[in-house]
């Protein structure tokens, strides 16, 4: 079948069913097979072995968040490049210069980020 239509995605649906079925079954079976002896201390958070202080719902460094925002921006930008790369030969020299100017603007932003130290992790 050489259709390139939605039928190509049917095997992916089968894969999803097989993998999902495996995961659910294994979780269920291992839940039944294992012994169950609960205790207050046993069900405590292990953390590092000694009694834990407070819980882990704590705020963390904003740098992780900043990295995530920048990732979203760069990811969307990379997505734009895929159609361009596929048609690269057809678009020829014009397409090349279009992308140079596009990437130029992105690179200005990238150097701004580096200059402002937004991705500096070794200071606090």
């Amino acid at each position, binding site marked *: *079948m050489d259709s*390139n239509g939605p039928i*190509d*995605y*049917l*095997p*992916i649906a*089968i*894969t999803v069913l*097989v*993998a999902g079925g*495996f*995961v*659910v079954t*294994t*979780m269920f*079976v*291992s*839940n039944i*097979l*294992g*012994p*169950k*002896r609960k205790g207050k201390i*046993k*069900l*405590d*958070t*292990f*953390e*590092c*072995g000694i009694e*834990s202080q407070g*819980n*882990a719902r*704590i705020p*963390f460094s904003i740098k*992780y968040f900043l*990295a*995530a925002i920048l*990732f979203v921006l*760069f*990811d969307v930008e*990379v997505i734009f*490049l*895929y159609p361009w*790369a*596929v048609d*690269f*030969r057809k678009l*020829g020299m014009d397409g*090349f210069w279009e*992308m*140079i100017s596009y*990437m130029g603007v992105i*690179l200005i932003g*990238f150097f701004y980020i580096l200059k402002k130290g937004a*991705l*500096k*992790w070794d200071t606090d």
Partner: protein
Amino acid sequence: MTLSLFIIYKAVLVILVFLISLVIAMYSTYAERKVAAFMQDRIGPNRAGPFGLLQPVADGVKMFMKEEIIPQVSNKFLFILGPSVAMFTSCITGAVIPWGTSLHIAGHDFALQVTDINIGILYVMAVTSIGVYGIMIGGWASNNKYSLLGALRASSQMISYEVAMGLAIIALVMTTGTLSLKGIAAAQTGWHWNIVYQPLGFLIFIICAFAETNRTPFDLPESDSELIGGYHTEYSSMKLGFYLFAEYINMFISSAIMSTLYFGGYNMPFIGRLGLSPNTMAILGVVFLFAKIFFFIFFFMWVRWTIPRFRFDQLMNLGWKILIPLSIFNMAITGFIILVLHK
């Protein structure tokens, strides 16, 4: 081919690919311990069966029989969801990899690939990006500070290296002109392996593959010396097994993708001159692909037992400040060469 035959054939192939990846992942754990033992001048596992060959089976049975401990303060549903997502995403990537050309039996062509979608690489990227949830949800639901730190590290590491990986793939797509993995593999006949045209791109890709699979030198999410067990500190029984197992399946799949994208996939130079029948060629192709995959799996292990771990700031600097500019440079050079030299 009728629709029912198509569905039956694909279902059989899906289950076959699934079982093969499970068995290879199982024996990768064994191989890892043997390789480590060899490099450290030890013997390694040798109790269960001859040469310890039944060790992975024993480990699997043990995982099933252990008690499940779900901490009282954790979020139960998310605690179970985390490892399930990790395992699920690593299992569904194999669907787009071309394991060989196709077998011609009884007037039908049976392609040795679950499905050839014309955006194959993007499917792999999409599944990789969903894989982040498994670690993040599991680490957060544990309600353990070390798990939270491990999960944060893992997710920011994976998303940072995804950008450079995407840019490396774009340079490759510029030379191939297609996103279909079958098309890319089929174009690399003889010595026209993509590694020859994209050496820098391959270097970037393999570094990113190490980071995406959380393997040493990028295994910060579970760096034992500072984070106990990282994001899976609180896990036990099969849920822990899923996290560990998912890592090995990911290693197998990324080895397969590296072989397909850069090392000719099922192609081997000079094999076309032997004048073998197409079916023999297809089977030989599968053998060659698996030989390449095993080499890469060995390479993953070799690196793990040779190179020490990065520090977190070094890891982020490498991803953002070196690999991203380098991959943009690689793109520009590739485009320039294609346009000027191959007009």
